[in-house]
């Protein structure tokens, strides 16, 4: 799952010269993930992993890193 999220973010949303050196805990928002990026990311995640991510939980706490994103998705995947 992490790899799929990474691939989408680094190929479609934010520019990171060396994605491999970007850790799963590194801050995506500080690296340029903005509101438009978040919107595209959520549309992708919902389709890709067949989950509904509640509007009220779209928040930097859940979106800030690859790890928090995975945790958030798994919470709703059950």
């Amino acid at each position, binding site marked *: 799952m992490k790899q799929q999220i990474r691939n989408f973010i680094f190929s479609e949303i934010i520019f990171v*010269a060396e994605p491999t050196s970007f850790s799963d805990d590194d801050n995506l928002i500080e690296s340029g993930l903005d509101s438009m990026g978040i919107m*595209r990311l959520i549309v992708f995640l919902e389709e890709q992993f067949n989950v509904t991510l509640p*509007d009220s939980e779209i928040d*930097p706490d859940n979106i800030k890193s690859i790890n928090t994103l995975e945790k958030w998705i798994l919470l709703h995947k059950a």
Partner: protein
Amino acid sequence: MNIVTPFLQQCVRTPNNIAFVEAEEQITYSELRAIILRLTTFLNFKHVQNQCIAIALDRGISSVSCIYSILAAGAIYLPLDMKNPATRLQIIVEDAQPRLIIGFGAPPDWLLDIDKWLDYSQIPATSFNVTPAESSPNSLAAILYTSGSTGKPKGVALSHQALSNFSSWAQKTFTITEKEQIASLTPFHFDLSIFDIFTSLSSGASVHFIPTHLTLSPSRLTYWLYEHKISCWYTVPSLLSFIALKGSLDKTSLPNLKQIIFAGEVFQSVHLINLSNLLPNATFYNLYGPTETNVSCYWKVERNRLNPEQNIPIGQPACGAKLSINSETGELIVNSINNFSGYWQQGELRPIDTKNYATGDKVSLNQYGEYCYHGRLDRMLKCSGHRVEPAEIEHYISKLDGIQECAVIGIKDMTSGQRPAAAVVLHENTELAETIHPLKKQLPTYMQPSKFLVLDKLPVLSNGKIDYQAIKLLFNS
């Protein structure tokens, strides 16, 4: 007339109205006036008339106070985008050659000439009851830097008359009164902010600064709009799309929000229809115009004419503009009092004939006699409301070690309009990742290419010029 004057008159009429709300702080018209008089007193001692003064502060009460004081002192304000990388800020400051740069605390590392730095918190408390400097209609008021097709950012210089003309048009058209609660999100280097800064304060309205972090949490933003009883908001379509899609508008109704005004990029009809269904009582306006003309065309959205398959028109002339279409190219030509005075370069105004401004936008008239927008005649991109010249991105990429050639194009995007993408030709034995690494520090986020494509050589047309259409196809394949 100095554009500050309507605000000062309003201070007499409604001294106790709230002018601004920023986080927990709020400030009345008379309190704001006191701050502005103090800063103006200080600037008057510095004899800054007709000189450019840069503001290195994020949007908020302090930076609005600076803007009004700079204008009252007869100087020209230049809002810097503090989200820009240091190198771009240096380029802008080097080009603008401001007399002073106002910010908080110690001078930032990127500032080479620290003598220009003025710490806002150190401005003395001495205050006189100053009257705003006399300004002729053509006196310059603002310089807004935007992406330049020559590879460097360029400063669009706007006069007092240009700002006043738009401000009073907007006040009348949207009937802005002292009861209005206006939400403000636009950074001050964008022309959309002219509404938030000037139309509001000359009407006695209250402006509420939206905390930036809320743009990452759409349903919290919706709740904030509800809590602050926002009645009017002028913003960019991409953010409105986000709220329409993910802002919990089905759960939080916004009964006070009467007017939503948008500009800066095409509002995808699908999203606009979605938003207008969620806000059945709001009136929507589509405003159009490059920074050089501010708003020159507008359309009051007619809900029954919205069609997901069709873009909305940009409508009728606004602000008294006279519009015409070049019969050969279809280019929109704008003749308006709003028009800019020229570009600010190397510390001074380079006057050019700005009476009839050729927008570079292709338009046509529809059956209702309304103007419709059909894209750019040149390569300019619109990325999340930002105007981006591919040439400026190419300028940075081509300077990187390891790059032989490059070409930047726009990839269409459902949400952010377009995103830049770069095709590059590398020197032998060069790695892409290593080569492009420095870009992160050189370009603002919205200008960073989201995709790179390494080619052996760039496709060219028979005349030897780069074939951008072919590059677009390569990205799509």
